[in-house]
């Protein structure tokens, strides 16, 4: 199981690399640099010579190659989990990841063949983030800290944190979808200034692009407020729970960085590296919020014998820290 966990960590890293590669494709406007799919300029994609990966082809074809690697890794993931994992719901998640990566590949192909229609491209971006969150979840579920946690009941519960911890990833994912919509409808610079909008708090005029862009900014405020409330709650009420304080602090830091990157993206005129970093940090932010939510709701998830942790259904189930678990 330990090696499976390390393998899943590698899949997580590869998936993040794939998201970065995808972000580079859109940031450089290379989405149609390879007009055909699944071939590349009529050549079997794995036989396409490296020397011809020039200009936009480098980004688009590179994205396809990394995607193929992640696809293969996901096949391995699903099979490995199916053969070694005693928890049925984890096996189900493994197969779900495989299905997601297949659908993701088809969406990527369709969006190329149909000249990047926004709904398909947005779905492609949205599913990429869900897939990343899913493999992060699988890596967590196979970790020794998760499997070895002693459970136990926090009798006081913390319904507030339970709700906040769930709301954060939902809000962050909604914000990511808004960002993807902005990105694939060309609304990234619909409001060219920051932090104001055309010099005002609220845009003086509206168009679809401006509305999408402004919604993304409002979404950032909502996410920041949720994350701040979550972090404060964890730090004040569960200071001794390092498995919660660590992701909560990291999440707060990531949101600060992410807002900064969003502002920089606008002010730099969508500079490629900044724009891509904004996508990647968004993915890491979602994953971190998911880890926090899963740990808060640790008790929802049964062990191999089908037992849930005591007190799991009310508020924060007690999860021993990694060191406790290993002890």
């Amino acid at each position: 199981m330990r090696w499976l966990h390390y393998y899943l960590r590698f899949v997580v890293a590869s998936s993040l690399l794939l998201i970065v590669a995808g972000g580079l494709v859109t940031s450089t406007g290379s989405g149609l640099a390879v007009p055909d799919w699944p071939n590349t300029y009529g050549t079997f994609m794995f036989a396409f010579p490296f020397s011809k990966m020039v200009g936009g082809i480098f980004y688009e074809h590179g994205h396809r190659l990394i995607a193929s690697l992640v696809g293969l890794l996901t096949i391995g993931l699903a099979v490995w989990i199916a053969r070694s994992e005693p928890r049925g719901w984890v096996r189900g998640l493994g197969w779900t990841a495989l299905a997601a990566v297949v659908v993701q590949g088809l969406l990527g192909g369709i969006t190329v063949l149909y000249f990047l229609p926004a709904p398909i491209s947005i779905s492609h971006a949205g599913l990429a983030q869900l897939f990343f969150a899913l493999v992060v979840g699988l890596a967590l579920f196979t970790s020794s800290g998760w499997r070895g946690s002693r459970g136990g009941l926090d009798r006081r519960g913390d319904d507030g944190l339970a709700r906040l911890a769930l709301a954060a990833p939902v809000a962050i994912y909604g914000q990511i979808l808004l960002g993807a919509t902005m990105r694939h409808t060309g609304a990234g610079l619909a409001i060219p200034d920051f932090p104001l909008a055309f010099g005002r708090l609220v845009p003086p005029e509206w168009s679809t692009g401006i509305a999408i862009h402004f919604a993304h900014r409002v979404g950032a405020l909502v996410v920041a407020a949720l994350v701040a409330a979550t972090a404060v709650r964890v730090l004040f009420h569960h200071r001794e729970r390092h498995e919660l304080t660590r992701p909560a602090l990291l999440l707060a830091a990531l949101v600060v960085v992410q807002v900064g990157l969003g502002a920089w993206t606008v002010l730099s005129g969508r500079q490629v590296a900044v724009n891509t970093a904004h996508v990647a940090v968004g993915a890491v932010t979602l994953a971190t919020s998911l880890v926090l939510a899963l740990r808060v709701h640790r008790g929802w998830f049964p062990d191999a014998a089908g037992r849930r942790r005591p007190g799991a259904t009310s508020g924060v189930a007690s999860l021993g820290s990694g060191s406790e678990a290993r002890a």
Partner: protein
Amino acid sequence: MRHRTFWILVSLAAIAAACNSRSDVPPVSIVPEGGGAGANAVGATGTSTVSGTIMLEGTAPAAEIIRMNSDPVCVKEATNTETEYYVVGDGGGLGNVFVYVKEGLSGSYPVAADTVVLDQQGCRYTPHVFGVQVGQTVQITNSDPTLHNIHATPAVNAEFNTGQPIQGMSMERTFDEVEVMVPFKCDVHGWMNAYVGVLDHPYFATTGPDGGFDIANLPAGNYVIEAWHEMLGVQTQNVTVGDGATAEVSFTFTVG
């Protein structure tokens, strides 16, 4: 079993649809025989001319040097690495302006038989701005020893995106609808772009570096002439030209 067969068929249909690369299929061109503008009477021709000059007022931004480092072949092949947004002659004439008769013509005109060539050479499109008639053949050629994709992004006509990975490759396309302008771009080399004006008559011209243009063989009449520039937008003017006469029309675009 019946359900399984159903889902297998659905999956195969989805995969087949996804693998059917539209980009390799030329758009179907439906052009009425003898003309591309419908079944109206044949459009009149004449001996009148509209000519003029497009001038630029103000100082155009200096051309920028395009960094072609992303493709070493382009670095080697390129003879011109300056942007073409503003082509200004010594006398202040503005080049790469598409001038055409926007209104005043009636009837349908036969499609020009000659083929217009859009060449990809030195990782640039030549010409940068040009015009064709609806149904007229545009031959797109790759003269570079590197890969290009030709991506037309019209608003009215059918979009297409086709790769030309081998030097010397050529393909032909037509446009079915009037559209000013249809942009072309190469997604491999982001600096490559060109524009084509698609009209249902032959009365158009593109200015050279001196800003001059002639639109000849017009019938006498009243016309709206439009001038389009990729950075400076459009201007229109009304003009009346008598039989066998030449009417002068000048436009002045302002920059800065």
